[in-house]
């Protein structure tokens, strides 16, 4: 027998308890990893290629207030502007889903390449999109989800405009930060159920990064003191505005995580206390045989650490495998796409486990150190 075998035999003496405490650590860490991964994905700034050159202009009052279409030529004339397209929220629901599962925007297809440089779309698809009045292009994630393919006709019920519109899928794009949305003709919307003369927002592209601040200032100035004042900002700033709306969710997730960790500490600490308390007498005998406090502390620490490590391996490992090889996008209906278990998150969970292992060992080890051989022997006598 060696000291490690002695420690392992001790840790496994009550197999059911060992199993339960390893499982509770595993489940909690799995949950912690899940929460952290979700938090990361929710707060991840959408970094689409080309974003540094794009500007979003919306009604200064709020995002839901429209802008007059006649603003477009004024924006186009601002030096440094390369392309401008309306970007109007349609809020359509597919079939009887009862909820919006992907976003649709009405825009000017002629500007597709000029404004959205990151779109991966064949020239043939783009040509179809630009020519067909009811044509729409749709992101790959949504297309895969509903098995849409070019040539399909789909009908969406608008929650903004009265009625439904039928679209013909002209192509499927990918390569953007969010391959879920659908784009279609602003003209089609205006000529059917839309409000001609009004658009949702303007999205534009500037020629160089240096043009950005000047263009933004120029747009804001151009419509100051008009009926529809405009607030222009970089796409990145616009996205960050959305993220800050997620602030509450962030706080919520952070506090759930804290509760999970705290509960975990309580559970493991009490498990270790129990495990040690019931062999106080044995530990006193070991002391009598010449084992020092330091060695007994190592026994307890190793056991506690071992339990936490086993739980961590199981919990973090399961999360990693599940989220790396499982189809999260499908399981969450596209709410989460990458759900990446990053090394940083795994490191954080492992750190929690390690700290847990140490904290749980402290109280029992102190109790053992404080108890003399004679007092220890009296327990259970």
């Amino acid at each position: 027998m060696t000291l490690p075998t002695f420690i392992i035999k001790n840790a496994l003496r009550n197999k059911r308890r060992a199993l339960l405490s390893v499982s509770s650590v595993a489940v909690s860490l799995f949950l912690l990893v899940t929460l952290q991964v979700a938090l990361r994905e929710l707060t991840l700034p959408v970094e689409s290629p080309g974003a540094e050159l794009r500007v979003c202009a919306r009604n200064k009052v709020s995002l839901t207030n429209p802008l007059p279409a006649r603003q477009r030529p004024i924006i186009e004339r601002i030096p440094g502007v390369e392309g401008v397209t309306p970007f109007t929220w349609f809020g359509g629901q597919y079939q009887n889903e009862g909820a919006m599962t992907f976003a649709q925007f009405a825009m000017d297809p002629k500007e597709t390449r000029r404004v959205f440089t990151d779109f991966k779309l064949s020239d043939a698809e783009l040509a179809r999109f630009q020519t067909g009045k009811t044509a729409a292009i749709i992101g790959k994630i949504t297309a895969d989800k509903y098995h849409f393919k070019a040539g399909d006709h789909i009908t969406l019920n608008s929650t903004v405009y009265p009625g439904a519109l039928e679209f013909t899928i002209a192509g499927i794009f990918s390569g953007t930060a969010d391959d879920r949305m659908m784009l279609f003709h602003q003209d089609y919307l205006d000529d059917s159920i839309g409000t001609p003369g009004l658009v949702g927002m303007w999205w534009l592209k500037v020629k160089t990064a240096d043009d950005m601040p000047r263009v933004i200032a120029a747009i804001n100035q151009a419509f100051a003191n008009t009926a529809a004042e405009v607030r222009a900002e970089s796409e990145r700033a616009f996205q960050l505005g959305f993220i800050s709306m997620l602030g509450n969710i962030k706080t919520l997730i952070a506090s759930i995580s804290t509760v999970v960790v705290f509960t975990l500490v309580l559970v493991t600490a009490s498990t270790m206390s129990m495990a040690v308390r019931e062999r106080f007498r044995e530990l006193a005998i070991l002391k009598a045989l010449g084992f020092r406090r330091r060695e007994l502390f190592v026994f307890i620490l190793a056991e506690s650490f071992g339990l936490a490590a086993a739980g961590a391996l199981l919990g973090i490992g399961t999360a990693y495998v599940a989220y790396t090889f499982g189809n999260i996008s499908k399981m969450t209906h596209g709410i989460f796409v990458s759900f990446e278990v990053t090394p940083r998150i795994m490191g954080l969970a492992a750190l929690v486990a390690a700290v847990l292992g140490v904290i749980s060992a402290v109280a029992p080890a102190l109790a053992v150190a404080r108890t003399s051989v004679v007092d220890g022997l009296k327990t259970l006598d």
Partner: protein
Amino acid sequence: MVAETIVKIRELTKIYAQGEIQVTALDHITLDIAAGEFLALMGPSGSGKSTLLHIIAGVDRPTSGECLVQGVDVTKLNETQLADWRNQNVGFIFQTFNLIPVLTAAENVELPLLLTQLDRRQRRQQVEMALEVVGLGDRAKHLPRQLSGGQEQRVAIARALVTDPKLIVADEPTGNLDSHSAQEVLTALQSLRRDAGKTIIMVTHDPKAAAFGTRQIHLEKGELSA
């Protein structure tokens, strides 16, 4: 030949103070124990037998007085020194639950050797020998619950002698045993003294057990009586 004195106790006093009440467990005890003695320490419950034994074995400290074991004043050692000293110089046998339940007889006997420099093979040899001495060579792989009470105590004796200490202390080692098992344990202790020259201090209530010793002393309210 005059046997050397292995334990030399002078004016040893132990007072437990609990708030207002003071309990004098040992009251100025002076006692010499010669090497090779099998001393039976008797006395009524609460007379201080265990307290005395614990101080001699270096697991408790006196309030005052000296306790020299093989010339070392154990009352002056610090915790760590005392732990090492116990490992090298004393073998312990307690009344009950001596053994770690998840370890086999051999592993239990091996425990004190884990603190020594011996390698695995040397440890195994020592363990086998110790188990042979107490007549349990064939029970090495048994867990404590697979052994009788008497056999458990003999495993404890094997563990006490495996580091080859001069001094073995036993606190009522037969207190929980039937007379047959007690006989086995006492015979084993007796042969340790006779064949291996160990000094044994045994606390007991039982005059029949005490008769196995070479000398009997009595404690009465913390004082020695003839």
